[in-house]
């Protein structure tokens, strides 16, 4: 097992190197001049010779190879570089924003777990009744709703006394207080809730007919123990797969949610960085995101072994 983990971790290095190269080429090929973004309005006010001097100094006139080697060298030294635009190191930007994005992802995951799995179990247990149809209809709506629209509706109904009840603040981070977390977590978790509900239902139904469940029932185990201890436990593999895959989705969905709810996460940094061609920030955040995704996949694989002793890695 330890060897397996080590081997997977070693694989991370060439994967990240490949991702870095592709990202670097894409960033290099993006049209436009980052200096416009660095200097803003001042660009049109400064004389052309000053602009040229600045371009030289930032290394923007260097060739592709020179810039690639320089970036790679920095990266190997553990230095993600410094933003062209913000007076901040990229590592500083990630260190500040990642915990906030993670907080939102955990909130969304929490919502999805406490709602999605029970809904799926109930729907499976009440298969083909009106309850099942109703819950699956609701989850279909949940899967289909665009995040920005859901966010807007949630804000209208739950923060505005004019349209609903002003239960929560409209937006803001405020040191990540719980009350500020509720709405963005609900919004970011809705799609995953709906997906989980549907997957849980299918998985539970699949397991229900298995011999070991019939045996468990026949030997007189209480209903709840069969349902949770046997049926759900054996249905967990597809559920965990979906959760693992959707963590990346949560990271992506967080861009819209962070914007609508003024949440200072990674998504809020990457969009302006792309718009303004802030290459170090783009590369840093995307590399970090890729690393995260690889690690989450690894953890997902390891959890398989935990929940299902039949799976062994060597």
């Amino acid at each position, binding site marked *: 097992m330890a060897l397996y983990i080590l081997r997977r971790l070693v694989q991370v290095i060439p994967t990240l190197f490949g991702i870095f190269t592709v990202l670097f080429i894409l960033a290099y090929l993006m049209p436009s001049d980052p200096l416009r973004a660095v200097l803003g309005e001042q660009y049109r006010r400064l004389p052309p010779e000053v602009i040229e001097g600045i371009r030289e100094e930032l290394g923007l006139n260097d060739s592709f190879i020179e810039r690639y080697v320089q970036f790679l060298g920095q990266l190997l030294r553990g230095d993600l570089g410094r933003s062209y635009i*913000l007076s901040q190191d990229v590592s500083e930007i990630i260190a500040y924003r990642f915990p906030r994005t993670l907080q939102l992802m955990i909130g969304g995951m929490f919502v999805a777990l406490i709602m999605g799995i029970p809904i799926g179990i109930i729907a499976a247990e009440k298969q083909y009744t009106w309850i099942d149809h109703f819950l699956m209809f609701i989850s279909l709506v949940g899967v289909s709703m665009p995040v920005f629209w859901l966010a807007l509706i949630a804000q209208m109904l739950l923060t505005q*006394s004019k349209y609903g009840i002003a239960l929560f603040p409209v937006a803001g981070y405020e040191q990540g207080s719980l*009350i500020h977390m509720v709405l963005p977590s609900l919004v970011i978790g809705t799609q995953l809730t709906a997906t989980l509900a549907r997957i849980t239902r299918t998985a539970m139904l699949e397991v229900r007919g298995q011999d070991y469940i019939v045996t468990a029932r026949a030997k007189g185990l209480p209903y709840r123990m069969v349902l949770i201890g046997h049926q759900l436990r054996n249905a967990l593999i597809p559920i965990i797969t979906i959760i693992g895959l959707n963590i990346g989705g949560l990271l992506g969905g967080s861009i819209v949610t962070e914007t609508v709810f003024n949440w200072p996460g990674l998504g809020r940094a990457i969009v302006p960085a792309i718009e303004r061609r802030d290459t170090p920030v783009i590369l840093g955040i995307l590399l970090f995101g890729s690393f995260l995704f690889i690690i989450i996949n690894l953890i997902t694989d390891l959890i398989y072994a935990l929940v299902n002793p039949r799976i062994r890695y060597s």
Partner: protein
Amino acid sequence: MVKRFTKFMLLLMVLSLVVAVPAGAQDEAPVLRVPMSPDPEHLNPFTATTIAISTVLNQVYEGLVGLDPVSGEPVPRLAESWEVSEDGLVYTFNLRQGVLFHDVEGVEFEDGDREFKAEDWIAAAEYSVTEDETVSSHPEWLESVVGYDEFLAGEADSLSGLNALDDYTIEITLKEPNRLFLFTLGVPGIPQEILPRMSEFANSPVGTGPFQFVEWQRDSFLELKANPDYYEEGKPAIGGVRYINVPDANTALLQYRENELDLLFSFPTGQRLAVIEEFADEYHEAPGLNVRYFGFKMDAGFFADEPLVRQAFAHAFNRELVWDELMEGARFPATLGYLPPSMPASTPAHIYEYNPERAAELLAEAGYPNGEGIPEIDLYVFSTAADELSLPVLQEDLRQLGVTLNIVVEDASTYWDHIGEDDVWFFLSGWSAGINDPSDVFNFLFLDGRDDTHYNNPEVNELLRQAMVEMDEEVRTQLYQQAHDLITADSPWIVSAYSKNTWLQKPWVDGFVPGGGGTYTARLANVTIDTSLLP
């Protein structure tokens, strides 16, 4: 177990509510909550190049003079008075005594309180004159001072035109008279001992302004508190300013409605009239200094040798329909010339009013009756303006003339880099003047072909150069008038609109007066909050 968990969760929620109370809420003087978007890139005054940065730094730093938001004229700040020699070359500033730098956490001055003195200003001025953009993007602040070129080139140890006569008197000598010297003198009052460590203070400014820096959580909020030692009696009257980052205009509106914001600057697209109707008593507007235009490439492509076609297009565009009706009054339709109407010389000899018949005549005169022979034209637009209704209106107006207009949308970075190229003949653009003076438009857009239209008329260049050194206000205005008339005749733009500063302001807020440059120019030291009106 379950009960214990429930109790824990309840406790967490209560704690979070306590944390959620804004920091300034318990202070006696209320804090002004201002929406902000985008976030400032940093807070270093020497490399400040965006409105987002100026929004905050305008409240934290002060220069020798400031600009009055209403009149736009220089007013005393760190200098309480100044004299100008008769030849307009020597400025003598008399500094205020007893002005203290902000007492900010993390900054220890050797003698406790640290007074602003002439040497501080001169050190900051010299610091700003460099070609190293990472140090300063504003060498132009002192461009007109004697010794500037030598100092910039590294041939002199000090800027010879700057002299501290004593701790409270600064003398500045100019190379030639410059009527705008005081308007563009952006050097901030900053303790000279922190200049070598500017990168440390790039995000935690220390100045002398009415508000001092407290905390900045990027993309969340930025908090300033009133400077208790500020030299103006009774100011600021509010406890501080909390800039709240709200990237989404709709969210900002919802926050304003729920009293989470005291001011609102941008309205969601398409909801402008509804918002104004809902908050009729809280709505304010004032003319701004931005000009929106469609630019023609003047030295390449189809339009370069077709003045009559350019004039025809300018007559064909129905600005009033766009801005008064379709865009719900978001800007003033450009019914005058190339300058915002508040500027001197803003009415040119010829005005391109909406006149489709005249447009058709001009096209025929140019040899293109009913648009025959004119190639399909691509209009380049930056993505954030893609839904501006001036585009379909212009498209339709030109179609009536027999001209096909294609709209090409590019993301802002690509667009800005592209429009200077020769393959772009026609583009949507805009310019924001910082001061209410024609030079701040003409010098950057029509002098020596510097702008993306590459408009370069030697006669205009000469007039603009003369105006720069002319101290007589009347003569200067005449020079700008002549230049304006020539530019208008050449028609390098279709002027579309002049900006309008619009904002909502809660009934308890008073004294918020933005200048033409935009709402960010308002001096928040003058703002008061009537606590009896707070909900």
